[in-house]
């Protein structure tokens, strides 16, 4: 069953905020600013809802089941509770609590990124097997050239005018390609947003 109230709220909110982009009216701006702030607050609350669901809806349910996953989920729940309680007592600006980020989260994420260096390189071995076409070959050649460029091994070319211009021109190409991609993405975003604003797509309705 569709909720007309939800539709009206979505469309109205969207239109007011959107008009604020185009019409520099102080009244409109005074309405639009709190609307945006509320959206930010709601986004934060939605984050809390999602975390509660993640811990008590997903992982706590897994804790009740048998198997190896049970123990991993138990770790998730326990660690979450410890972090939450510590944070509630210490507050997030406390340097002691911030060590959770600097000494736990950062090393883990950095290590994951480091893993990517290996796994992406390994996957790139078969790049041409996956993309055996013109695009793939151009991609392949570009990756090699720019890896060497990024390494700084070709820094001597800065002193050779022709080579420098060629490499400079080569580095312009991504600008054109990225611009084309970004314009396309903008068109797609525009279409997606408008479909919601005219009530066609309603991801919020039950």
């Amino acid at each position, binding site marked *: 069953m569709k909720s007309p109230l*939800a539709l009206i709220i979505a469309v109205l909110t969207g239109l007011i905020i959107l008009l604020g982009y185009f019409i520099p009216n102080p009244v409109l701006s005074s309405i639009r600013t709190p609307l945006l702030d509320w*959206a930010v607050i709601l986004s934060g609350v939605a984050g809390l809802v999602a975390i509660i669901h993640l811990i008590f809806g997903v992982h706590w349910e897994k804790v009740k089941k048998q198997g190896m996953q049970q123990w991993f989920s138990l770790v998730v729940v326990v660690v*979450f509770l410890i972090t939450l309680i510590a944070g509630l007592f210490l507050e997030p600006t406390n340097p002691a609590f911030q060590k959770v980020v600097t000494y736990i989260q950062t090393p883990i994420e950095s290590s994951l990124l480091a893993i990517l260096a290996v796994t992406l390189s390994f996957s790139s071995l078969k790049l041409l097997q996956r993309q055996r076409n013109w695009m793939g070959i151009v991609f392949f050649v*570009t990756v090699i050239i720019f890896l060497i460029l990024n390494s700084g091994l070709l820094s001597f070319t800065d002193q050779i005018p022709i080579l420098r211009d060629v490499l400079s021109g080569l580095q312009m190409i991504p*600008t054109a390609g990225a611009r084309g991609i970004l314009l396309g993405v903008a068109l797609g975003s525009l279409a*997606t947003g408008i479909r919601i604003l005219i009530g066609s797509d309603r991801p919020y309705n039950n």
Partner: protein
Amino acid sequence: MIPTGLDLVWVIVSFILTFLVFSYFLGDNAVYRFVMALFIGVSAGYFAVVLIFQVILPNLVVPLVSGDRLVLVPLVLSGLLMFKLTPRFSRMGNIPMAYLVGAGAAIAVGGAVMGTLFGQVKGAWSAFLPSSGESPFLAYLEGGFLLIGTLASLAYFHFNAKKGSATSGKRTVLVAIFAWIGKIFISITLGVVFASVLTAAATALIERTDFILQTIQLLAGK
């Protein structure tokens, strides 16, 4: 800066965690999964604390205490959103979600038009302006090259097929030619970005190995 005391303990924890994550090189294993569980729990806990102290308290609770009536609206909406936790009453949360989606759609449209469309179009135009010391001819050449690349990349995405080719899905000749050129530009772009991603990841690996090295030296020095 040599860590001591509790800081040293944290460094050792960090050191161990790095090794445990690196165990993934040996394949997906229980140790790695344990660390990932720890990671998910810690990040969720930290995020929750930040949300409580830096979003909800200053934006909902503090204004409410100080008598700001306008805050009742987001407060009620937030309350309704909490109903999404229970499947039975989840419909109550549709209103705040509708609000969020409407706002998000407007932000997407506004950002696409005012940010990206205008920004990129103006950027393409500005390429024709010669920078300081550059000859206008070179600037036009450069701008023209970029323009063709941009147009071709745009043409690559063209979706309409030519009439009568509903089954073959072929584009018109002109669009097809431009699309082919655009494909080259796009693949170069993706290649450049991918090379940069590899560089960033390699930097992370280097930073981690450097950390391992430093920690070993620190512990050996102790």
